[in-house]
């Protein structure tokens, strides 16, 4: 077919009766010469690419090792693999299980089992329903068991030294419950209660002091410092949430107040103390979704009765780690009370992702009333990126500096 086409002034003839036999492109001499070294240069990248592709395929495909396990255990429910890394537990792997809409719309059961290279073991089961007893009344139940053989302890007080780090094994078991009443979208009250059990053993980190008796003497602690404990607790948490968005708040804030009474039982019989905390967060929109997040938090423990064995040191409030003084290790500072402040400047880098820089300040006190002051506060600063969704933060990568060290955190949010 020959078509004479008039296109304005000119005319084009399209003859589709003559057909071109396609010939694939052949490399020129120059291209061939360049191809070989390029192939070698790209080889490590290709290897990384192939392994990433295989990993991603395994994680996202419907059929894989996890479906084999599901069949093996006769569970036709979504099991999923878990992978994590922490400086103490090292590489952790496990399996998670989630079941939604069990009794009521919106409720779910979750279970996880983790094992780590450094012999950490964590088992966790949780039930959550936002509206089990009506539209505004929800319930959360959880039980977990953890064996953590390489936890650090630095002694008590704001002056504790990094070089005093020792290694302790914690064995903890917890049963917790929370009955939540949400009279409005912004205000909620939660009645918390539960039972906790703590046993301490010699640590596993061979480069540090691990013998509990030696540690007690070296750090000058009371004999009760590492006693086991069994505790019931009952508390009330109130939350006032005025944020305009849970994932990327640009105005408003949250005000959390929590007070609870802890009473010993069994080996901790006679022990009784109050624990109270306040956590205030406020968000300010500066310009074009650049946000300043301000946080002030304080916690205080007040012993009512020492009981037969006294208050173990490990039950005292701690400061340090991903949630407060980010440039310091978890539990770096420990005492009867703590206070901290944080400023975080957030700016968008991708859709639903922010970069941030921050500075944290905080310290622990023996008592707010007796030794509160503005001196010797510890500070850290850093930067990172975070991803958020409609329900909250989904992912956070943080690099933090302090006078002692550089810390990195990588965290997936609850709703992933």
């Amino acid at each position, binding site marked *: 077919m020959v078509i004479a086409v008039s296109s304005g002034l000119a005319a084009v003839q399209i003859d589709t009766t003559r057909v071109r036999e396609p010939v694939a492109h052949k490399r020129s001499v*120059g291209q061939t010469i360049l191809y070989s070294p390029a192939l070698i240069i790209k080889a490590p990248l290709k290897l990384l690419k192939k392994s990433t592709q295989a990993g991603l395929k395994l994680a996202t495909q419907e059929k894989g090792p996890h479906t084999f396990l599901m069949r093996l255990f006769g569970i036709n429910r979504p099991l999923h693999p878990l992978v994590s890394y922490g400086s103490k537990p090292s590489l952790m792997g496990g399996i998670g299980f989630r079941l939604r809409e069990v009794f009521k719309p919106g409720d779910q059961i979750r279970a996880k089992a983790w094992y780590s290279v450094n012999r950490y073991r964590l088992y966790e089961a949780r039930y959550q329903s936002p509206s089990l007893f009506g539209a505004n009344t929800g319930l959360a139940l959880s039980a977990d068991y953890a064996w953590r053989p390489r936890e650090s302890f630095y002694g008590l007080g704001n002056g504790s030294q990094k070089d005093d780090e020792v290694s302790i094994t914690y064995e903890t078991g917890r049963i917790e419950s929370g009955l939540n009443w949400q009279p409005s979208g912004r205000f909620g009250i939660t009645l918390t209660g539960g039972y906790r059990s703590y046993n301490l053993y010699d640590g596993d980190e061979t480069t540090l002091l691990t013998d509990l008796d030696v540690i007690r003497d070296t750090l000058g602690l009371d004999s009760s410092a590492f006693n086991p404990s069994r505790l019931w607790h009952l508390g009330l948490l109130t939350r006032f949430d005025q944020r305009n968005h849970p994932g990327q708040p640009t105005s408003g804030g949250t005000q959390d107040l929590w007070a609870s009474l802890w009473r010993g039982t069994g080996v901790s019989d006679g022990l009784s103390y109050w624990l109270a905390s306040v956590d205030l967060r406020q968000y300010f929109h500066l310009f074009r979704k650049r946000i300043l997040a301000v946080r002030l938090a304080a916690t205080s423990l007040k012993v009512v009765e020492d009981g037969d064995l006294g208050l173990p040191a490990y039950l005292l409030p701690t400061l340090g780690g991903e949630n407060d003084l980010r440039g310091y290790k978890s539990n770096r500072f420990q005492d009867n009370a703590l206070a901290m402040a944080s400023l975080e400047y957030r700016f968008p880098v991708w859709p639903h992702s922010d970069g941030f820089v921050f500075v944290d300040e905080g310290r622990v006190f023996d008592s707010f009333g007796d030794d509160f002051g503005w001196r010797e506060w510890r500070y850290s600063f850093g930067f990172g990126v975070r991803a958020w969704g409609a329900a909250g933060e989904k992912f956070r990568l943080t690099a933090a500096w302090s006078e002692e060290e550089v810390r990195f955190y990588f965290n997936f949010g609850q709703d992933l």
Partner: protein
Amino acid sequence: MKRIVRLIFVLIACGVFASCSAYKPDLGPEGPYWKDNDTKNITEPTKREPSLAWEITERTTFRQAEQLLDLDRSFRKIGGRPRQAGNINSVDEVPNCSWYTNRHHLLPMTADEIRRGYNVTGGPDQSGPWTVFRPKVGGATAGFWIKDIKGNQYILKFDPPGNPEMATSAAAMAGRFFYAAGYNVPEETITSFRPEELVINDGVTYKDSDGIKRPFTREKLNEILSLAYHNPDGTVRCLASLALPNIKGPFSFSGRRKDDPNDWCRHEHRRELRALYVFCSFVNHWDIKDQNSMDTYADEDGRRFLKHHLLDFGSSMGSAGYGPQEPLAGYTNLFDLRDAFVSMVTLGLKKWQWEDAQPYQYPSIGYFESEIFHPAKWDPIYPIPAFENMTGRDAYWGAKIVLSFRNNDLRALIDAGQLSNPEAREYLFNTLKVRRDKIGRHWFGKVNPLDYFVLEQTPHSLTLTYEDLALKYGLNSTATSQYEVRYRGKAVIRTRQLVSSPLTLSVGDLSDLVTVYTPGNDAKGYLYEIRIETQRDSSKWSRPVVVWLWYDADDSHWRLVGVEHLD
């Protein structure tokens, strides 16, 4: 050390050598080919099911690094000689093939043809009930599949509740645009239905977010429809997209499909896929990706072969399908490493143009603008290899097709969207018009936009007629344009200044022309080269358009056999 220096020297020499190996048009006395033989019978390929997560990861990270390490590509880039498209013909056009059919720019369509688009069934038959037989799986928008009483299957997609008419009109308009531009698309029709008249097939199931199979009930159907805008009379407006038959999975914007012997040209080097960038930028089809394409095992004229389609245009213009488009759509990739790096380094103090976006005026259009739009800075949702290999010539080809849509054609496209608000229609028309002209001004500035050459021969002269597209489309109406024609004479390079088309060569000129190619002693034909450059006002001369003429000594006949727009 000396060896390393030598090796580096050899590599650089090879690079320069490779980058200098310019594109050579396939010239012959018969003139250009207008059809590729890529519709030969093939055995049925398996269905491709690529992972979107991997595609985003690969295109955003690994491919960027690989491209840097591709020495041939890098040297070509440094040398200003990027690799030209591999499937163009000798007059710088794309022959008809299983990917592309020349339509509006060479065979102007009427307004009615543009409005109608690709239309086989005319949409779902309203005379009987529609049976829902499958919920839509994947994608950001809700929908489901129906079968009408004729047995035709359609996927139904809807408008978000806050943006009536937006997603359906955007998809219908963009689909018709891509069809008229030459691509294969599915039939898409805007229609409406009463939800209570839908019938659900027995045994239909869906998988919930945990992957558990559940029965697809009337409640689930209502849940999907609750995400759609309902007309005041209770009907639901929808876009009915006719199911493509024998689907074999999406095509990739790079490489070749191994189980398709007809797939001869790497996709990143196909002109119509490279220049798709220009079309997507015009209608802001941000969501262009492998997953929004589809190969079908077509059966035409007794031959079975793979045909390649574009689909799912719901995220075009101001629509994101599920809601209005984010202002950044079209101005950055979803995960743009470069922009993210700049934001991180400047602590967010770098202001991106799209951040000043004003709220959209018309809910039925969403965020679609023409002020900050820049034809070369438009970005798809994630990097597309074919787009990254686009040259100035590819972009020029795309731009000239976009510019072939004149005002009446744009109005025909807008008619297809069935927007009820006249002000919204006018806004959309003006936006498309400004974007079109910006595309023309930008890409016509990268090559010399002389095109549609025609050669006429008289006993005493040759007349070469051409169109200056910048003038034709009124893009440089205030500038004075002049043209310099160079051809190789026996002694010197002859130049001739023209103020407009055509160029007439006398017998004397012709006898002075020197062949640039003579095919051997028993040759009956000779090839001649003419270069034309353009100057607007007193700006610098453009790169030349090269026109190739073939003289057949047997019948003393001249033919125009090639056109090359150098960039």
